[in-house]
């Protein structure tokens, strides 16, 4: 499916923005998800349940494809399902950054979603612990929000990272 087809399916124009596309997608879902809608004519062959389901699938596929094209050009418009290779969860800053970039998510986007400032997020990724808040509880909160946003399980990512943060704090106090 090329971009033009996707836009036709979601019934948006060529110059529709990412936001317009998301709105159109949500509207389409609202329209076609209901089995009994006021606009439907169940008496007619055209409105067979299979036809409606085929349309729903088409809408999903079109939106997925447009999201993929958009996220390649950032910022993304829809969380992508990410499949993790078992046993290789990133936990240090460098690995987290690579993971985020591979998912096509910008730091600005994460900041807008988590309400954690970009400066703190980049300090997390670069492990500049001295630029982070002093209280470990705050760092834990930032990291957890960041990990969840880029599609990682916080409970697996946070402990090893926090261990390094607290070791650094202990060294500094000595």
């Amino acid at each position, binding site marked *: 499916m090329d971009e033009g087809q996707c836009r036709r399916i979601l019934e948006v124009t060529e110059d529709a923005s990412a936001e317009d596309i998301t709105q159109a997608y949500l509207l389409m879902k609202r329209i076609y998800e209901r089995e009994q809608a006021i606009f439907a004519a169940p008496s*007619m062959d055209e409105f067979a349940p299979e036809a409606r389901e085929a349309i729903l699938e088409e809408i999903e596929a079109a939106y997925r494809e447009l999201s993929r094209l958009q996220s390649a050009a950032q910022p993304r418009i829809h969380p992508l399902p990410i499949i993790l290779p078992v046993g290789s969860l990133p936990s240090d800053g460098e690995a987290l950054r690579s993971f985020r970039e591979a998912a096509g998510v910008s730091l600005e986007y994460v900041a807008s979603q988590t309400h954690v400032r970009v400066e703190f997020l980049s300090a997390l990724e670069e492990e500049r612990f001295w630029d982070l808040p002093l209280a470990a509880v705050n760092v834990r909160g930032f990291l957890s929000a960041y990990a969840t946003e880029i599609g990682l399980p916080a409970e697996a990512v946070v402990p090893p990272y926090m261990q390094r943060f607290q070791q650094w704090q202990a060294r500094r106090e000595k």
Partner: protein
Amino acid sequence: MHIWAVGGGKGGTGKSLVSNGLGTRLAERGQQVILVDADYGGPNQHTYCGIRKPQTSLVQFFEERMPLEEIAQPTKIERLRLIPGNINSHNTDNLTTTQKQKLFRHLKHLQADHVILDLGAGTGYDTLDTFLQADVQVGVIAPDTLAIENFYLFLKNLKYRQLGNTLSLLSLRDRAKGIWKNRAELGIVNTKEFVAHLRVLSPEFSELFNQEQKKLKMHVVLNQVREHRQAEIGFAVKSAVVKFFHITAAYAGHVRYDKDLWLQFGQDTPALQRGSSFTLRQDLERITEEILKAQFPEET
């Protein structure tokens, strides 16, 4: 000159109101407009225009061969003229197809920028043919299942009519009938497969049918919107027209219901020009602009 047709299947959805609003707005934009009351069985465009007793009407055209230019009479709105429907005739809704075709031929020669046909309800062949021949096709619906169901039926009939007309033009009608009759043996289960079969049989048909289908572009207008959440029905119907019926469509917008419209008739002022009709006027202006934008992008 552009011929506009306003139809939509069910009666009482507001075809006359929308025709009147379109005509008024186009005239206000500085163009010469002629409104034609082609609702033979229930003409009332003259009442919308605030004309109590039209001096001439389509009766003179059909019975006395009076030229349409002479029948077209000025209204209170500058540049907007009206050709009223058959009123004082014993025979209003039983015109022959030949008569209606003659009318359409004559309409094409009128001196105006836009001619707007207010069509009647129903899905008779003449109504369908007139709608299909128009340059701008407007379908009016109301936010209820009854109106919407009838609208879809109107669309289906338009499609069947296109198919029938194309076959007739190529003298393939009898042959196609034979194929449909034997469809079980040929493994044809629905119209879609029937058309596919015909396409293979005659490339000429395929070509001509494509051309015919391109001529249909439905502008959907949702009238009688009483609640905000009903506005979405307009989008939904337009979307269904595209996705279930594979007809090109654009959503032109909705018209808010005016509970006082019934009070505006029988006066010398046209119904839409009365002060309290302002929401109708606003909405119909917006809709006219939307249709112009979608239909003539290069001109607006």
